[in-house]
């Protein structure tokens, strides 16, 4: 009966720390921490030989970058810092300028009353020799312009910033101010 009283021998746990350390080192080495972030864009569907849709000249906001990374708005030299404000002026057209985008008064679901929707489209043109960095800088400014327009619109309509709105309202605001950026096939830009 002396044997029965003996309890199971304890497993030595001192190497547990070493095992855990090895696992830890493995995870530190083989994983990355950074979450990628970038400028999100939806490309248009591919259509063979399609005729360019006819758009009134006043409704286009042409931003072009040539192979020396020089910038032009509607064919005239411009600075990168101008883009955002020029874009906002073009879309909003506060004084109903004949040369800026047309507006259309429409009812949009989820937004009280009628809203002025711009028919303006941004056309981003680049050369095959343009640097990707310069292109991204312009993209960023354009997106910033659209984001600010949405923020201002949200503030005026709902009294809240765009990112504080709920999903349905965000969708409605997006419908009023779509990210209308068309990226043309690159061409020779002088």
């Amino acid at each position, binding site marked *: 009966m002396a044997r029965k009283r003996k309890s199971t021998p304890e497993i030595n746990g*001192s190497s547990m*720390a070493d095992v*855990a350390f090895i696992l830890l080192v493995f*995870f530190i080495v083989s*994983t990355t921490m950074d979450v990628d*972030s*970038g400028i999100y864009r939806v490309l248009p569907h591919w259509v063979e030989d399609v005729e360019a849709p006819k758009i009134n000249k006043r409704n286009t906001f042409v931003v072009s970058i040539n192979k020396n990374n020089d910038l032009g708005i509607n064919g005239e030299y411009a600075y990168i810092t101008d883009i955002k404000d020029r874009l906002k002026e073009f879309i909003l057209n506060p004084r109903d300028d004949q040369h800026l985008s047309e507006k259309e008064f429409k009812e949009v679901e989820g937004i009280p009353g009628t809203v002025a929707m711009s028919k303006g489209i941004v056309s981003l043109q680049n050369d095959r020799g343009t640097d990707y960095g310069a292109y*991204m800088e312009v993209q960023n400014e354009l997106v910033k312009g659209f984001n600010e327009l949405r923020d201002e619109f949200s503030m005026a309509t709902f009294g809240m910033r765009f990112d504080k709105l709920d999903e349905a309202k965000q969708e409605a605001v997006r419908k009023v101010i779509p990210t209308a950026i068309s990226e043309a096939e690159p061409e020779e830009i002088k």
Partner: protein
Amino acid sequence: MSRFDRKGKTKGVPSISTSSLPDIVFTLLFFFMVSTTLRETTVNVSYRLPEATETVKLEKKSLVTNIYVGAPRMEYQARYGTDSKIQLDDKFASLGDIRGFIAGEWEKRDEADRPKMTVSIKADEKTKMGIITDIKTELRKAEALKVSYIARKKVVDTKY
């Protein structure tokens, strides 16, 4: 002599109990397991991402397909030169490979997730737009229309 030596005899330094060390390490381990993601590919091109402020985070890693563009790393320059190259998975690829690659990635995802698949383009800021445009055209042909141009987050001085 010392007041603390009750028996008047010098004792050795008491050893610290290490029985909780595994717990601490396991906690660290779990932290790393949860907060990091596995590195899937070895990148063979060197790239310096452009800067941007208006970036959006890529939500789900499993829905993201990566395309790298940049000059090959030093060890590959003898074979591939220093011109910008496209990398898909672990290999250098040409433009014609993109469509097959996208189709393969498309097959790998669950049916419900397929429309949400995003292609992330990680390109060097000195890359010429010609190659990027060609990639974009191939992606459009492959019906992979959701694209994210990966950028570094720029720290901005808030003026207003």
